[in-house]
C-alpha cells in the first residue's frame, strides 16, 4: 500500500517539477491573464522609490491584463549598473538619465522609455523651517517652501550645527545641519542632489569640464561624507522621515513623488508638521526603463503609453507625460497641486557626474 502511494506521488511530483520548470521559464497557460492569452513573468530591477507603484494591485492587474506578471527587486540606481548578470533581468528601471546612461554603456539594451519624471525635493518639518529661518536655507516664495542650495552650501562650509543657530529652541541638536541623502555611490537621488549642488558651487553653471569638477569636489565631498553612514536606497531614509521623525532626519532628500504618493493615500502618514521644500535650482529625475529582453521592452512601452498606467503613475506622485493627467489626479485626491517649476537645470553629462562621484568615492 505504502509503496503504491510512494510511486503515485513520485509520478505526480515529477509532473509537478515539469510544470514548475515550464512555469519558471516564463510561459504559463494556467488561466492567468486575458482569456486565451498566456501570462509571461517579467523580472525587473528598479530604484526603490518606484516599488510602491509596482506593488499597487491595480498596476499589477493592468500589466497582467496585458499578459505580464511583473516582479521587481530594488537596488540603488547606480548600483544597478554593477550587478552581476544584470541582463538576466528583462528590464532595469533606474531613476535618471545619467543613471540610465551608465547602464546603457555597460550592457546591450533593446529599448529605452521615460514614462514619467519627478522633481527632487527636500522633505522637512515646520519646526525645522522655523529653526532654520535665520540661515535663509529654507524660505517661502509665494507660499512655496524653497530650499536655497547656495545658502545650504554656505552653512555646510561653516560646519553649522543646529544648536549654534541663533534663537533655535525648537531643534537644539548638537549635530551638523545636513540634508540626509542616500549613498551617492549607489543611489540616484543623491547624484541628483550632487547635480544641483555642483551647479551652484560652479557659479551657477552645469559642471562641464574636469577642471570644474575637480574644483568643486572638496565642497561636494563634505555634503555627503559628513552625514556618515547613508542608506543605499532613497526609500529607506524617506521611511525614516515618515516614521522616526525629525530627530533622525530633520531634512531628507526625496523625490517629490514619494511625498505626493503618501499624501494621496490619505493614510495619515503625512502629518501637519511635514512639509515639502523645492530646491533652487531644481532638477528633474527622469525615470528610465531600459529593456534587455522583449518582454521588458513591452513593459516599458506600456508604462509610457497605456493611459491607465500613466494615470496610476500620477496616483503614486510621479509626473506623467501629460500635466493635465497629473493635475486631474491631484484634484481628484484633494491634494494641493505642487508648483510649476521654473528654475530647472539639466544634470551634468554622464562623464562629469561620474567623475565627481568617483572623486567622492575615493574619499570614503
Amino acid at each position, binding site marked *: 500500500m505504502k509503496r503504491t502511494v510512494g510511486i503515485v506521488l513520485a509520478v505526480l511530483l515529477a509532473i509537478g517539477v515539469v510544470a*514548475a520548470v515550464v512555469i519558471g521559464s516564463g510561459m504559463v497557460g494556467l488561466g492567468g491573464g486575458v482569456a486565451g492569452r498566456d501570462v509571461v513573468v517579467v523580472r525587473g530591477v528598479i530604484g526603490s522609490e518606484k516599488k510602491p507603484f509596482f506593488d499597487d494591485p491595480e498596476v499589477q492587474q493592468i500589466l497582467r491584463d496585458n499578459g505580464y506578471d511583473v516582479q521587481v527587486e530594488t537596488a540603488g540606481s547606480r548600483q544597478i549598473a554593477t550587478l552581476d548578470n544584470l541582463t538576466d533581468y528583462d528590464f532595469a528601471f533606474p531613476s535618471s538619465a545619467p543613471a540610465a546612461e551608465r547602464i546603457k554603456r555597460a550592457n546591450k539594451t533593446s529599448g529605452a522609455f521615460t514614462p514619467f519624471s519627478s522633481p527632487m525635493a527636500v522633505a522637512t518639518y515646520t519646526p525645522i523651517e522655523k529653526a532654520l529661518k535665520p540661515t535663509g536655507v529654507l524660505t517661502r516664495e509665494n507660499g512655496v517652501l524653497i530650499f536655497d542650495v547656495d545658502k545650504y552650501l554656505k552653512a555646510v562650509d561653516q560646519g553649522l550645527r543646529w544648536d549654534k543657530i541663533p534663537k533655535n529652541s525648537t531643534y537644539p*541638536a548638537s549635530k551638523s545641519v545636513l540634508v540626509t541623502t542616500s549613498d551617492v555611490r549607489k543611489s540616484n537621488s543623491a547624484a541628483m542632489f550632487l547635480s544641483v549642488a555642483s551647479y551652484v558651487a560652479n557659479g551657477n553653471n552645469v559642471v562641464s569640464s574636469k577642471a570644474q569638477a575637480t574644483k568643486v569636489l572638496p565642497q561636494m565631498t563634505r555634503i555627503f561624507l559628513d552625514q*556618515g553612514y547613508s542608506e543605499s536606497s532613497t526609500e529607506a531614509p524617506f521611511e525614516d522621515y515618515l516614521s522616526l521623525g525629525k530627530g533622525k532626519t530633520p531634512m531628507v532628500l526625496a523625490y517629490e513623488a514619494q511625498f505626493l504618493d503618501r499624501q494621496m493615500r490619505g493614510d495619515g502618514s503625512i502629518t501637519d508638521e511635514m512639509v515639502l521644500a523645492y530646491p533652487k535650482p531644481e532638477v528633474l529625475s527622469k525615470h528610465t526603463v531600459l529593456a534587455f529582453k522583449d518582454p521588458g521592452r513591452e513593459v516599458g512601452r506600456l508604462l509610457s503609453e497605456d493611459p491607465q498606467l500613466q494615470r496610476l503613475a500620477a496616483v503614486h506622485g510621479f509626473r506623467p507625460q501629460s500635466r493635465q493627467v497629473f493635475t486631474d489626479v491631484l484634484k481628484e485626491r484633494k491634494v494641493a497641486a505642487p508648483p510649476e517649476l521654473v528654475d530647472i537645470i539639466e544634470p551634468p553629462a554622464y562623464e562629469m557626474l561620474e567623475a565627481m562621484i568617483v572623486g567622492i568615492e575615493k574619499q570614503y
Partner: protein
Amino acid sequence: MRRARALIAGLVFVAVTITGCSFGTTTGNSSGSGSGDAVVLKVMAGSEVKDLEPVLQRAKEVTGVEVAADYTGTLTGAEQIAAGQADGTYDAVWYSSNRYLSLLEGSSSRLSTQTKTMASPVVLGVRESVARKLGWDTKAPTWKDITTAVKNGSLTYGMTDPSASNSGFSALVGVATALSGGGAALTQKQVDAAAPQLREFFSGQKLTSGSSGWLADAYVNQQGTDRVDALINYESVILELNRGDRLTEKLHVVIPADGVVTADYPLTLLRSATQEKKDAYTRLTDWLRTPEAQQLIQEQTARRPVVPGVKLDSRFGTTDLIELPFPNRREVVDGLINAYMQDLRRPSQTVYVLDVSGSMNSRGRLDELKKAMSSLTGAQGQTSQGVDRFATFRARETVILMPFSSRPQTPQTFTIPTKGGEKVRGQIQAAIDGLTAQGDTSIFTSVEEAYRVLERSTVSSDQAFNSIVVLTDGQNTSGQSFGDLQAHYESMPNDLKAVPTFSIVFGASDRGELEQLADLTGGRVFDATSGDLTAAFREIRGYQ
C-alpha cells in the same frame, strides 16, 4: 507562479485522497499561500532578534514562510557575509543594523533588498533613585553630562563588548561621536583627540558582556550590591526589564539629549537566494510591515514601529530621537574598537583554571586546549585583520595561568605592557606549550584557589574586570566538594563575590556541576561539546 504551486499541491492532495492514506506531508490550499507547506527562509541573524519568535510564529500562519535562524555576532557575521560565506547557505541576513556590514569590501554585491523591520535606540537605563539624584528624571543629560557624573563617582554602568555585541558597539560610536563634538561623522583624528574624555567615560563601566541579554541578566544578579547604577542597552531591553518582575528598582530610560545610535533591524535578502526564497522573502517582509505585525512587534518586544500610522505607545515617551551620524569608513570604526580595547576601557584580569588531569591526554584534548589558548596569544598569526584580532590578549591585561589536576599548580601571572606586548604574549605561549597532563580532577579546590589568587592580586577590582575561566574535561574527582566551595564563596567580601566564573563544557565534563558554579558566581557556561574549543574561548573574551 503561485497558481502553479497551488496546482502542484492540488495534484498531491488528489493523490493522497485517492489512496486514502494519511501522510505527514501537508498540502497547500487553493489560495496558494497561507496555511500548509511553509517555505523555509534560512536566515543568519544576530541574537537580538531571538525575541521575535511569537511574531514569526504569526508570520508563518499568515504568509506560509518559516524563518530558520542561526545566530552569529554582529561583526563576525558581517565579515562572513562580505566574504560570501553566507551565500548558498542562507537566503537572508537579519542583524540589528547593516551599518558595519556596509563598510566591508564586497558586501554590497552580496546584498539585495533591505527591509527595516523595527527600531530601538541604544540608551541608558538608570536606577530611578540615581536618575532623580542626578536630575535626569526631568531633564535628559548629554553624553558630556554623563561623563561628568562618572567622573564625580555618581554613576557606574554595564555595557556589552563592542567587538562582540551591537549594543556596546553602538554606544561606543555614540559616545565617541558626541564627545568629539564635531557634529559630523567621526574621523580617526577626532577619536584620538577625544581619548581623555572617553577614558573617563569608560572608567564607569563595571559590567561587561558578550551579549545584550546576558548583560541584563548580570545586572539583575548584582542588584542589592548597588555596584552598578545603570545599563547601557537597547531601549527595548530596558523596557522589557521594567515590564517584568526581576528588578528591585525600576530603570529610568535616559535618552542622551545630544543623540543616540538606533538599531533598525533590516531583514536583508541575499542576492544569491533562489527565486522561490526571494518570493518568500517578499511575502514575509510585506507582512512584517503591516500595521498588524508592527503593532505585535511593539507589544511583544518593546521596539518602535517603523511604518507610518502605527502609533508609539506610552512607554516610549515623546522625546525626539536625535540620531548621531555613523562613521562611514571602516578604518575609523576598527580604529575606535581597537582604541577601546587597548586603551579606553578598564583592563581585564583573568585566572585561567585549566584542567591537566590524566584524562586530558586522551583524544587529543590537551592539544585542543593548547590550540584554543594559542588563539588568544596571537601565535597563530590570525591577528592582522578581522574581528578575531580583538580576541588577542590586550594591552594592560593581566593573564593568570593556573593549571590543575589533583591540586592547583602555582599560578603564573603575566601582564601585557602597553608597548612591546609581543614579548609577554610569547611568554604566555611558552607556558601553554609546556603543559603536560596527569593526575585527578580537583575542580572546586582549584576554583577556590583562583578566588584567593584574585584576592591577593595587586590589581584591585576597581581597576580591572576580574573573571575566572574554568576548563575541565571531567567531573570533580578530588579535593573539596561544591558545597565546600559554596561555603567559602559566601564568606568572601562583596567585590570578590562579584567575580564571575565562566566555564566550558568539554569532553566528559559535568554540565550540571558547571552550571551550579555559574549560578553561584553569576557566570555562564559555554558549550564546546560540538568540538570547537577555540570558538568557545573566543566567545568568552566578550565577557572579560
